[in-house]
């Protein structure tokens, strides 16, 4: 079950493309499409040649055809040639762009899919500390910036440079002096456009930043509309928004001012060059150095030689922004994955469910042990209850069993084999986890329940699981029943309902080992007994770990482990633990006292 090789989607390991040199990284990212991209650029060069041909044709028309005696017979052919040359130019332009875009989209789909897969395979430690907003930004807008590099900036830069080279060479064949004197303006135009675009992009960032701030102000106002109205604070809110709004206007003005001086500046420079070059051309034509047709061709090509150059600054600024994005994407790619298929032990069927902890210690950060020298044994089908305060290590212990984290000291044996010898994938198929705050996906309730099952399931199976988790009735009361969407676009489920859907989801998966992390914490009192019954149905002959606060939920367990600060302080059955002085009996007595208090109160009222 080689997961990577199995996947139809992730066909190329992008780790190979990592490079300290950003341009090299971009080049490697296009592995497999590099030749296509070179051909695309070459096609842009050919298109530029075809454009040159148009102007040479014009020159031929003026200098050679018009003086011909049989001009009227030749003219239709010349007209046809113009169309033919345009067809060539168009064909090459189209081919170049089509190919470049194809490469861009191929690279993007590769990057998106790899990144998606990579993220879901990074280990828990990474996800514990990563900020989801940041990860989302890297995988959406940063990837898009990389796409734009291939689809736009790189090919455009190539086109402009090739156009410049081809036009310059062509002009030089007409007249070297004229050609060279016509590109004097190019270096200052490029430098100026770069200068202005750096400023524009700074101003644009400031503008965007304020745009974000304005949106935040607006969103907070809309979300807090009750508070605003309740305190009659509309006037205050309007002033606050007004400040942000004016700042946005001000920054917009700065941005626009930068734009408005940058364009006329280069317009003016190029205009001056035009006057100079055209005058020179006219003088050359008058004294016979060049023909009138050459002059006409020259003026046409001059436009394509000089004007595109003022886009170079913009492209360079955009490319540098794209490289920053690439770097942010690469940062994620450098992270190590959690291997799913690294185990050597591959049992044919299901596990029996015997679990042994041998002197297990665990820490997330150095020198802050969360579990300390834990040893215990669970027979197949037994239920283990973990009791203890928050932070005593219960959840951590449970997380070790599906290898969410690997044990570093001591070992855990499943059916007599070290956990680390099982592949994570196999283990997780055998184990079901219900978390304290379960996460549901924004799809239908049915799909959520069938989420973990790797096969098609019938409606009957789904309903049965829901019934067992005591959530069927609730689901049937929704207008769209099992097809009801969860989340923003559908219903908002209460904490207890979510937990019960999560229970049904785990139930349908039918795991051999069941881990319940405080699975009844947000269940309201009315459904609690139904849930407890459902849980008992679930446990059956599975090995079960259950974290709970209430004695009633743990008393049925075969083994009860009482935790305090990462250690097991008491162990035994309910009866055994009740027989001795200790935390367990204290907790039991406190909870029993509550009942007495209630009875006292009711008696006091006189019932």
């Amino acid at each position, binding site marked *: 079950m080689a997961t990577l090789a199995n996947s139809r989607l992730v066909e190329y390991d992008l780790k190979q493309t990592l490079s300290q040199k950003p341009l090299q990284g971009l080049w490697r990212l296009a592995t497999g499409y590099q030749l296509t991209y070179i051909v695309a650029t070459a096609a842009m060069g050919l298109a530029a040649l075809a454009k040159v041909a148009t102007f040479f044709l014009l020159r031929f028309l003026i200098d050679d055809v018009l003086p011909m005696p049989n001009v009227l017979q030749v003219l239709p052919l010349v007209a046809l040639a113009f169309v033919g040359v345009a067809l060539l130019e168009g064909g090459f332009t189209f081919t170049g762009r089509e190919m470049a875009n194809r490469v861009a989209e191929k690279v993007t789909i590769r990057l998106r899919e790899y990144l998606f*897969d990579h993220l879901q395979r990074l280990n*828990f430690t990474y996800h*514990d500390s990563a900020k989801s907003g940041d990860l*989302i930004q890297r995988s*959406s807008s940063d990837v898009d910036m990389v796409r734009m590099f291939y689809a736009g900036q790189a090919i455009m830069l190539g086109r402009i440079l090739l156009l410049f080279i081809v036009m310059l060479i062509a002009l030089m064949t007409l007249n070297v002096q004229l050609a060279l004197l016509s590109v004097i303006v190019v270096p200052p135009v490029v430098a100026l456009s770069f200068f202005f675009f750096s400023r524009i992009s700074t101003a644009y960032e400031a503008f965007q930043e304020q745009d974000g701030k304005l949106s935040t102000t*607006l969103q907070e106002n809309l979300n807090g509309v009750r508070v605003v*109205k309740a305190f009659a604070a509309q006037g205050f809110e309007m002033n606050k928004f007004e400040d942000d*709004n004016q700042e946005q206007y001000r920054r917009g003005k700065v941005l626009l001012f930068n734009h408005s001086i940058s364009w006329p500046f280069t317009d003016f420079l190029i205009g001056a060059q035009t006057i100079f070059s055209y005058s020179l051309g006219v003088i050359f034509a008058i004294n016979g150095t060049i023909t009138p047709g050459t002059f006409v061709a020259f003026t046409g090509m001059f436009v394509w030689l000089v004007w595109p150059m003022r886009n170079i600054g913009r492209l360079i600024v955009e490319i540098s922004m794209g490289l920053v994005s690439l770097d942010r994407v690469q940062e994620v790619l450098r992270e190590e994955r959690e291997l799913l298929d690294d185990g050597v032990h591959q049992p044919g069927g299901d596990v029996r469910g015997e679990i042994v902890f041998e002197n297990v210690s665990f820490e997330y950060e150095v020198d802050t042990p969360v579990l300390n020298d834990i040893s215990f044994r669970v027979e197949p089908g037994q239920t283990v209850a973990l009791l203890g305060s928050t932070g005593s290590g219960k959840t951590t212990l449970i997380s070790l069993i599906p290898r969410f984290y690997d044990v570093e000291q001591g070992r855990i044996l499943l059916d007599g084999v070290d956990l680390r010898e099982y592949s994570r994938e196999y283990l*997780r198929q055998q184990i079901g986890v219900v978390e304290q705050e379960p996460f549901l996906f924004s799809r239908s309730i049915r799909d959520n329940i069938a989420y973990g099952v790797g096969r098609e399931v019938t409606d009957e199976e789904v309903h049965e699981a829901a019934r067992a988790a005591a959530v069927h009735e609730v689901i049937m009361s929704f207008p769209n029943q099992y097809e009801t969407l969860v989340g923003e676009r559908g219903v908002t489920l209460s904490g207890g309902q979510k937990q019960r859907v999560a229970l049904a989801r785990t139930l349908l998966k039918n795991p051999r080992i069941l881990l319940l992390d405080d699975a009844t914490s947000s269940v309201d009192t009315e459904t609690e007994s139904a849930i407890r019954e459902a849980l008992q149905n679930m446990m059956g002959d599975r090995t079960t770990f259950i974290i709970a606060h209430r004695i009633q939920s743990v008393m049925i367990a075969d083994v009860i482990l009482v935790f305090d*600060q990462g250690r097991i302080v008491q162990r035994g059955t309910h009866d055994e633990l009740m027989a001795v002085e200790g935390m367990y009996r204290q907790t039991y007595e406190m909870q029993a006292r509550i009942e007495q208090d209630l009875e006292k109160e009711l008696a006091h009222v006189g019932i």
Partner: protein
Amino acid sequence: MSEYSTFEEEEFYTSFDGRTFLRLLSLMKPHWPWVAGFLFCITSVSFIEAYLTFLGARLIDEAIIPGNLDALRSIMIQWAVLIVLLSAGVFGFIYLTGILGQRIRYDLRKRLFNHLQDLSFSYYDKTPVGWIMSRVTSDTMRMGNVLTWGLLDSTWGIMAIISGVIFMLAINWQLALVVILIVPLLWIVATEFRKRIIKYFRLARRTNSQITANYAEMIQGVRVIKAMAREEKTLGEFGVLTSRMYDASYRAAWWSALFLPAVQLITAFGIGAIAWYGGWQTTVGTMTIGGIQAFVGYVTMMMFPIQEMARVYAELQQAIASAERVFSLSDAVPDVQDRSGAAEVESIAGEIVFENVNFHYEPQKPVLKQFNLRVAPGETLAIVGPTGAGKSTIINLMCRFYEPTGGRILINGRDYTEISLHSIHSQLGIVLQTPHLFSGTIRDNLRYGRMDATNEEVIEAAKVTGVHVFIMALEEDYDSQVGEGGVLLSTGQKQLISLTRAVLADPEILIMDEATSSVDTLTESLIQRSMDTLMVDRTTFIIAHRLSTIKKADRIIVLNAGEIEEMGTHRELLKLKGHYYSLYTKQFRSEAAARESAAAEVSTQQPVPGR
């Protein structure tokens, strides 16, 4: 859910709606000097550009062919002057247009925001926040852009074509008439291509937001995916989206790659015509070489204005759809607003009576029917009952976030719709279940209770609730930032701040929706104490969840399905052994258990790394 469908991020093509268009244009009215300014600049620029091409032709015919250097000089002087004017014109139109666009956007945002402050809860209940956000941000941008850059580009387009045609007609009208034929052809091609490009582009954009949502969900639910060993399948599902995205973006790119060559080809037919017909005309002397050059120049440049105009045309359709949505928002009338002649009153203290109140959010589903309730001044009324019983509705009506659809609510014997909203809201204190904080400092958030409170008063109030101690422990005490939505504070701290606001407001009527979320024991006792202080001698409505709160109330009403099922004091209701009794005993057990484990936590509190 069907009502959501109206709020889909639809980008429909509306048929061209003239009324909305005129209304859109009227947004420019207050800025007419700017509009006139940029229209003048752009018209001049397009004329100068056309004239420069004409000068190029004269260069050949008057300087090169006759070999006349004087002509060169005079033409070049004209040229230089025009370049200066052109640069000034370019500066002018970018500056004027850009700033005008910013002004229009500023105006629109301001108008919408201020209007939003007046809209009633019924509007907010029906309308997702995200939808409103898009109206105020992206729609205003689209409208501003089309009114400025759109108008600019299309004016430039039209003027460039007109001036080009004028010069061509002046040079050789027969050839001009032939060449003009390509204009409608270019227009058809441009609009047809635009339509297809936009279609796929939108599809790509929609798919893109699905992809982003998919990323977000995967990242948030990564624990479940891992626990279920479902990576393969998740990636497979994602692959469907990326394939769809590839198709859509590739098609959009394909059509745009073909667009330019297609336009160039049409232009080439024009140039062919010039070569053929123009060439022939030179032999009979009705056309010059300069003329041919000018014609080639005009025809080549013809494709740019057409391209721009096709783009603007497509954007205009989108902008009209945007304008429709924006106007629907700014035209929405608040359900709850002051009646004419509503009285401003100093005080709203006194008896409160719900008299045969009917209420529904949706016509077919009554929430309250013939509801009657009388609350004495200074009384604390606790409201309990299951979800959906109508507890929040009573509070919403009391706050006049909604008004009864039948019957009346009297404050001190006077129908409260006769009193101004401002009078009522300034004397109401409201503490919500989930406290809402605004980004800014703690002081800003506290002062929300009473905007004109002095620093001393703010601190005084914070001392009453006990939040002062915690604030002083922060590095920048009252000037500490709370973060967006108060993320930098704990739930309990947010609740205390929200209570402090109410203390600062010192309202005559207090309305509370008690929080259910658990907080640590110390904060819990602070919250309890503050609530007790607040309720003394104040008419109080409270949706109660905690036993201690319920027990302290002067009166408890048990709501069920919009009706008062039981009413009385704690003791009276227990004796009934009815709904309240069973609620109470259940509540008692679970609350005590929670208190139990909370107490255990405090004793062994230690940081939990990771999650």
